[in-house]
């Protein structure tokens, strides 16, 4: 049943800051299949979250998607926009970046929904949890109440300021209805919140972190989305709670058959949850493949480095091996045109001074790495001297200082 649902190609997202252009995501390619759990793993600042926000169209100024396509398989949507935006449609796929903003926004909730890292700050502190979940329910109810279209609608839900003003006196004009509230209780029940009918009237600060993360999952499920994007869903939680939340996600995924894109820096979470994995570094997917490809047959030294830095309960005693060096600067003028990992890579060779393409690697047919090691072995004779990049960085540093003095 491997049917692609999301096809991201050549995606670049840039942030135009005072320090210069930051290349948060560069020429990123990945595909997500329907019904799978796709993991994106990488260090902080590797572009994982920006990728997720790009899919949701939530990149705000000063950030911008500068290039690429995000294609989403939805036959109804393809039909709906075929006449007005033929360039966006490719079979059943629609390029989300070439359709109008309103149409893109209308996919939020019903096609894509998202759960965030910190549940405590991702709920509005001054509204009850039930109210906020009911809002998500209402968005979908109102969208599908329109008989002309189901999920193929291209207009986002409307609610005018005058309705909002009137709703203070007329309950019938309120955005959230009784039916929405009822559904919110059911959703809370579904994610295992005890006594949901009472909990629905409580405020976020009255919930524990784990409960609130479940409530956020409930909120994300309100629209029965095709793809659920979970951005570090367990990072802010206690270890014991993490497992519960992951179990809930796994169970719901099996029940509903939805697709999950799981973003994390924790390889343990990846191993537990995912079918396929993309490893991100400096805004690129440096290696992707099935769980087996990444954990047993990894090619990229960065992937190997990530795996080497996980503590192993079986072999206590040895020291963990951290990856030397730091995450590279993503400032455009400091990035250069080479393998971005070469300066930290224990196996850097002369070839690495050119940008490596995606190279198929041994393993499943999806296994691809942006590393020359995928097609030929490490040759110590061609290794770069240890201090190769040090000189370069010093040179760059001076250049930077001169520029500042101007």
């Amino acid at each position, binding site marked *: 049943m491997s049917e692609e649902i999301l096809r991201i190609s050549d995606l670049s997202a840039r942030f135009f800051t005072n320090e210069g252009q930051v290349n948060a995501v560069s020429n990123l390619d990945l595909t997500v299949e329907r019904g799978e759990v796709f993991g994106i793993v990488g260090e902080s600042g590797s572009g994982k979250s920006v990728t997720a*926000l790009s899919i*949701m169209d*939530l990149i705000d100024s000063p950030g911008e998607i500068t290039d690429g396509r995000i294609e989403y398989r939805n036959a109804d949507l393809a039909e709906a926009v075929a006449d007005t935006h033929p360039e966006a449609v490719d079979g059943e796929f629609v390029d989300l970046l070439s359709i109008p903003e309103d149409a893109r*926004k*209308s*996919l*939020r*909730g*019903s096609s894509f*929904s*998202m759960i*965030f890292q*910190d549940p405590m*700050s*991702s*709920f*509005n*502190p*001054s*509204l009850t949890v039930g109210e*906020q979940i009911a*809002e*998500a329910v209402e*968005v*979908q109810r109102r*969208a599908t109440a329109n008989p002309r279209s189901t999920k193929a609608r291209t207009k*986002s*839900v*409307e*609610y*005018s*300021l005058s*309705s*909002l003003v009137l709703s203070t006196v007329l309950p019938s004009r309120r*955005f959230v209805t009784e039916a929405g509230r009822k559904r919110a209780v059911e959703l809370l029940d579904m994610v295992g919140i005890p006594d949901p009918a009472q909990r629905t009237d409580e*405020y976020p*600060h009255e919930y524990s972190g784990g409960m609130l993360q479940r409530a*956020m999952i409930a*909120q994300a499920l*309100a*629209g029965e989305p095709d793809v659920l994007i979970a951005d570090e869903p367990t990072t802010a939680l206690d270890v014991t709670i993490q497992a519960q939340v992951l179990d809930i996600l796994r169970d719901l995924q099996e029940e509903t058959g939805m697709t999950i894109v799981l973003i994390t820096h924790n390889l343990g979470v990846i191993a537990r949850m995912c079918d396929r994995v993309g490893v991100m570094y400096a805004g690129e997917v440096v290696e992707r493949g099935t769980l087996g490809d990444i954990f047993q047959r990894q090619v990229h030294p960065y992937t190997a480095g990530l795996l080497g830095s996980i503590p192993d309960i079986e072999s206590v005693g040895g020291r963990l091996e951290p990856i030397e060096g730091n995450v590279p600067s993503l400032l455009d003028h400091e990035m250069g045109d080479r393998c971005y990992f070469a300066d930290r890579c224990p196996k850097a060779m002369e070839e690495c001074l050119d940008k490596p393409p995606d190279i198929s690697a041994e393993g499943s047919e999806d296994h691809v790495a942006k590393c020359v090691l995928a097609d030929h072995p490490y040759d110590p004779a061609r290794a770069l001297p240890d201090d190769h990049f040090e000189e370069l960085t010093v040179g760059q540093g001076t250049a930077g200082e001169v520029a500042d003095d101007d």
Partner: protein
Amino acid sequence: MSMGKFLFRRTLQGVFVIWGVVTALFGMRAVSPGDPATLMLGQGATRNLIERVREEEGLNEPIYVQYFDYVTDLLQGDLGYSWRSEREVEAMVIERIPATIELAVAATVIAILIAIPLGVISATRRDQPADYGATLFSLLGISTPNFWLGLMLVLVLGVWYGIPYPSLGISSDLSVRFGIGFIDLPTGRRGAGFVEGLMAIVRDGSFDELLTWLRHVTLPAITLGTYFTALITRLTRSGMIDEIGKAYVTATEAKGLPGVLIRYKHVLRNTMIPIVTVLGLQMGTLMGGAVITETVFNWPGLGLRLIDALSIRDWPLMQGIILFVALMFVVINIVVDALYTYLDPRVSVE
């Protein structure tokens, strides 16, 4: 702690504040130079009258007895007697309260209706022409002195262009000419107020009195409300900009919620807390009577009466008005604190 208990505690605190004000007011009169009886009566009073006032006001008693009598009278609702006007101070204060409340509420309503949408627009269209316009407006509004704005409105609208504020059965020649004011100068009677206007509608279905009132209140309310509007616009803008950067806003956008709800139901609600604080404090100030605006427009509120009392050194009347203003301040502050718990559930009444 329950709301009732909270209100009880705050009221108790308020009582101490008021007691402090009372003591200060008493002390000020006691230490101010000159004979209190002469102060109350003015220079031309006869010796007999001065003696009588000394006797009746207990000014021959020791100071602590005077203080005790003063507090006892206040507790009984007796603010004293204005020998200058030959009337009870309570009556003189009470009759001015409606006009003061009308003007304060009208100015606040104008401020809220204009400032909050303007602040929201300004924050959501940051660095666009609408934002520059709103920012310029609030800068001008904050830096324009009240008396100047009032005079200019009278001069430009009333005198130069003769915008029809007149044809008021209740006004004097002067206010007909300038389209301002509220009092019928020859008789000194006050025109119909807001409540009378409403009652006229109920009584005989006539909107005339309410419209008349509206015509009278517009310019003073704009004058008084401009600074206030500018202030709230600024607060709303900066508060919204802070709030919009928070994670829950992104999460709300991710739900696909309509923009109006994100801006007003979610973001604005969390921005309201500092705004309500300022609104409350300003309302308290306005309750004291907007002295300058009331003077410019001859608006029969407490501010005008306070100025009158000051100019003739009518001590009992001044004391009565100041005490009332302090009381309003305390009450409004308690209301504002109670509102916090409604606006932000994390603030418990403890």
